[in-house]
C-alpha cells in the first residue's frame, strides 16, 4: 500500500522535503514508520521525540496504517 508522509518544523529541515510518498507492506504500522524514519534520517535521534497524526488527527501507540493514509510528523509544537 501507499502512504504519504508530511514533514513540519524541524522535521522538514532534517528531511529537506515537505513530503514523501512510500510503498509499504499492508500490515505496516505507526511504530514501524517511526523506526524507518529514524533509520533513514539518524538526525531524528538528536531531537525531541515527535508525535504522529494520521489524516489530520493525533494518533497514539501502535496504529495500523491504511492505503493512502496521510501521516504527519509533528515535532513538539510551539505556537502562541
Amino acid at each position, binding site marked *: 500500500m501507499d502512504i504519504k508522509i508530511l514533514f513540519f518544523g524541524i522535521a522538514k529541515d532534517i528531511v529537506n522535503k515537505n513530503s514523501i510518498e512510500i510503498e509499504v507492506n499492508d500490515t505496516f504500522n505507526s511504530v514501524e514508520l517511526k523506526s524507518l524514519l529514524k533509520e533513514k534520517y539518524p538526525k531524528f535521534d538528536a*531531537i525531541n521525540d515527535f508525535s504522529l497524526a494520521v489524516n489530520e488527527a493525533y494518533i497514539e501507540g501502535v496504529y495500523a496504517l491504511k492505503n493512502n493514509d496521510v501521516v504527519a510528523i509533528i515535532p513538539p509544537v510551539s505556537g502562541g
Partner: protein
Amino acid sequence: MKKNISIKITSDKLNLQTCNDFVHDDACGGIALFVGTVRNSTKNKAVKRLGFSAYEPMAIKEMYKIAEQALEKFAIHKIAIHHAVGNLKIGEIPVIITTSSPHRGAAFDACQYAIDTLKETVPIWKKEYFEDGEVWVNSHP
C-alpha cells in the same frame, strides 16, 4: 462552524478589534483578551524575529476543538482564536484569543485554558532567529 466560534490562521496582520467585536454579546458583562506578542529575547539572548509555520488544516481542527471544549467547560458565550503564520518582528502579534461571558470569571478562565491548550496541541511551530543562527523552539532536548 458554530456561530459562537471564530477560528482563523492567516499570514495577514491579526486584528484585535475583529476578535473583540466577534465575541461582543449584549448578554455578557465582560470580554477577556489574550494577545501574544513577539518578545525581544529568549534565555537572555536577543531575538531578531520569529517565523511561524503551521499544518493548517489540522491546526484549524485542533483550534476548533479547543474552542468547543472552552464553551463546554466554562460559562462563556463566544470565543475567537486567531493565529498568524509567517515572519513576525519584535512586538508583533502571533496570537489573539477573546472570550465573553455574563460574569468575568468564566471569560478569564476560558481565555487562559485556550492559550495553554493551544501551546500544547495545535500543530504550529516557531523558529527563533538570532544574530548568529536560528532555532526551532522546543525541538531540542
